[in-house]
């Protein structure tokens, strides 16, 4: 898609305000909570700390991508099944980090999972069921 944006607009503002993709959340505005996480060329970044113009010509994935063919992805199903969702505010960011991890070539262990989501804060779940959901999909 092609858009004109002012230079000072962050990717977060672009996604939420201009494109109405409200699944990307603001939690702190300074890259310390992960609620604004999106995938840039399949790598997790904080959209609140990324200028929109930086992603010119690049691939951005938000959580809608995971169910783009009309059904839940495995990771989304696993989150639902394992109780990994409580208030849901951290969920889109968590799902994207999980998705990026599972699709990377990394060997997955519990420690690797914890590190992959270490930049996403959650105040409700204590992370444990999120980790279980990711283990579920990674089959470990």
């Amino acid at each position, binding site marked *: 898609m092609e858009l004109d944006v*002012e*230079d*000072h607009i*962050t990717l977060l503002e672009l996604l939420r305000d201009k494109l109405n993709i409200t699944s990307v959340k603001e939690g702190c*505005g*300074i*890259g*310390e909570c*992960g609620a604004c*996480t999106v995938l*840039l060329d399949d*790598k*997790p*970044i*904080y959209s*609140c*700390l*990324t*200028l929109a*113009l*930086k992603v*010119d010509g690049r691939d951005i994935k938000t959580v809608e991508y995971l169910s783009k063919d009309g059904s839940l992805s495995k990771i989304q199903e696993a989150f639902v099944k394992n109780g990994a969702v409580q208030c849901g505010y951290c969920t889109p960011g968590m799902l994207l*980090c999980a998705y990026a991890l599972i699709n990377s070539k990394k060997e997955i262990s519990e420690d690797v999972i914890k*590190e*992959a989501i*270490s*930049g*996403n*804060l959650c105040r409700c779940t204590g992370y444990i069921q999120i980790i279980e959901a990711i283990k579920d999909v990674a089959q470990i």
Partner: protein
Amino acid sequence: MLPKFKCVVPRSIKEVLSLLSENECKVIAGGTDLLVELQDKEAAPLLVDITKISELIWRPEERVGVISPLFTHGFVAESPVFKDMFPSLAIACSKVGSPQIRNMGTIGGNIGNASPAADSIPPLMIYDAKVRLLSASNERELTLEELLVDAYKTQIRKDEIIASVSITPMEGYRQGYKRLTIREALALSRLSVAYAIKEEKEKWLDVKIAIGSVTPVCFRARELERALSEQIKDRDLLDEAIALTISRIRGQVGARETHKFKLPILKNLLREILWGGSWE
């Protein structure tokens, strides 16, 4: 919210240097420090995004030991070249912030921001880092120690960018990086030690220690290094050497509240690192 500003994305080094020599600018790479700094400010100068400059993009294998300022922490942490030849730096980079920060934040940005708690700086210091600065009219090289002036202050002039950082491998040395944080991720180092130690079972041959987050600028503990070089491993000697570092810190910054816990912990860490085995 960020103030309104303009940002340009030059493609060549000539372009960026010309911009810097003619305008009030701020260089932006990953943006993870700068965009936090600019929050709620009234105004910002022209931002110059340097991440597309072709001359700054190369693979580590192509120029071993020469770091591009655009290398992200994540890239260095995962790169076989760095993990193999510069493990202290690779470890330090793997601990910065969080995966998202590591995917965007760069070595150049880490040096340029010059935070006392910057994680890449202590390892760069033990690898005797030399920083090449380019401007439209000049090229110069400074050691990292010369470059860092004070907390958040460097010798980098308004019209200069970091073009590369050259480091020397320490083959045969036991290398690593230890940091003290309040939690396991998304945390600044409250104390950090980068080390490279060449030793035999009973003797220190050559020791390199760089300490961060205790003084406004990271420093090489040269008095300790000299005291232990070519010495038989001895606990009393080690404690004396550590005491030299502690008094150097006290001499430099005076008594600080944070020293009440940082200095005892630093002492413990240095004992652990240099002794090699269990201190008890």
